[in-house]
């Protein structure tokens, strides 16, 4: 069957798992080959879709504008996103939005190493839009479902990426199940869900 380069799916992942996804890789030597982060639950992610509470925005650029946004999930994890001159639409959204606000973010995972040698994982935005609480709640349920599916596959299967996750990471997979439960429970306790 002919294969054509197709758009990569946007994975659903909670911030705490995403921030643990410090291992990146490419599947070919081509410069333009897609870059993946390896999720600890054994899946590769070239793109993610996130809905959460934008709690803070800050221009952290030195010579030119470089906006940082913090997007907080239902179980306390935080996504960091950065938009500069090459992401003008996302940068102007971060400039204009007034936190706190529910936002939807589509973007690519990126990692960088700090001076201390830690690896930080962030999102390079393709788009940021303001959304309502219903969208955010739906995302929480969907992300819990997708996370549980990955955990099930991790426990019962042995795909290439599961093998890779087993050798690259050592945090127990149980953590991510607990986080999914915590996120789902927050929908009961917080009808007026606010940022954790």
């Amino acid at each position: 069957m002919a294969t054509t380069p197709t758009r990569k799916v946007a994975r659903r992942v909670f911030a705490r798992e995403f921030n643990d996804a410090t291992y990146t890789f490419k599947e070919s030597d081509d410069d333009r080959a897609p870059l993946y982060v390896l999720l600890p639950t054994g899946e590769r992610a070239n793109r993610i879709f996130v809905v959460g509470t934008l709690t803070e925005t800050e221009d952290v650029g030195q010579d030119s504008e470089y906006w940082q946004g913090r997007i907080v999930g239902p179980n306390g994890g935080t996504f960091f996103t950065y938009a500069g001159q090459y992401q003008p639409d996302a940068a102007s959204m971060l400039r204009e939005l007034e936190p706190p606000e529910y936002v939807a973010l589509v973007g690519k995972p990126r990692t960088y190493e700090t001076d201390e040698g830690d690896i930080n994982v962030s999102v390079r935005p393709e788009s940021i839009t303001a959304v309502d609480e219903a969208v955010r709640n739906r995302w929480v349920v969907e992300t819990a479902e997708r996370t549980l599916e990955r955990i099930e596959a991790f426990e019962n299967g042995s795909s290439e990426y599961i093998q890779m996750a087993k050798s690259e990471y050592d945090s127990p997979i149980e953590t991510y199940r607990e986080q999914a439960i915590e996120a789902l429970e927050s929908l009961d306790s917080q009808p007026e869900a606010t940022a954790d």
Partner: protein
Amino acid sequence: MTETDLRTHAEDIYEQFSDQLDISVEEITERLETLVNEYKVPTSEARRSVINTYLDEAGMDRDDIMGGGNEQKVISDVDRAEEWIDLQAKVVDLWEARSDAVAQVGLLGDETGTIKFTKWSKSDLPKLEEGKVYALRNIVTDEYQGRYSVKLNRTTTIEELDEEIEVGDDEVEITGALVDIQSGSGLIKRCPEEDCTHVLQNGRCPEHGEPDGDGEFDLRIKGVIDDGTQVHEVIFNRDMTESLTGITLEQAQEMAMDALDTSVVAEEMHDRVLGRYYTVTGPTLGRYVLANEVEEPGMPDHEAVLIKARSM
């Protein structure tokens, strides 16, 4: 073409001739391999050639094996390229052939869906008429970018049938987040030439160049719906775009006029719909789903997911 594919062809041929001739699947596979691997003959031609050899040996006519040889398929079953099949289908649509090599091109339909067909000029076959139902025997499946089609060829027989087929529209329903709006969305202009639906890019039509007269304004969104496991490209026509975004064509034209720029419309649409969840229903065409209905999905049952999570 892999060994296993050739072997499948060989098994098909074996079944056709095993009553008449003392042959083996291995022997047929070998003949096919020689033609395909050594002489670089396309598989379909290799198959033809091998079948002809056996027809001669058995003193049979091609007609003797026709119909009996192929699998009678329904359109939704077509899931492999280079398969010889028979179909009973209605000509749903005839398109303009873009090349002299093509006599007719269009869409066939049966109860299970629709599929593109191509009829080559050199095959010298009778003309198919729109709306009529035919038994098509000995047609070959093809695949391009994940989408299947069938080709009518010299060996194809066409029999008009006196029946009606209720064509299924292979409709799909997808729910997911709208994660991207592609270029060519928003307020667009279409070529004013009759029967041309091309979108003008910088005032130019890919077919008619710079058309006489102004293009016609239209609204469209080419979007991507993603559910976290699969992506679907979806086209929202004017009606769907209006109901999705709440922006009518008239309003869009006003917005563009005020800003002296049509791109403000797409930007406003981004803000209104990107990152939201939608359930879209509609038929598929090529790699696109054509939205016929759009609605916002209700809240999923988080209690059920919670029960599952706790029981794992």
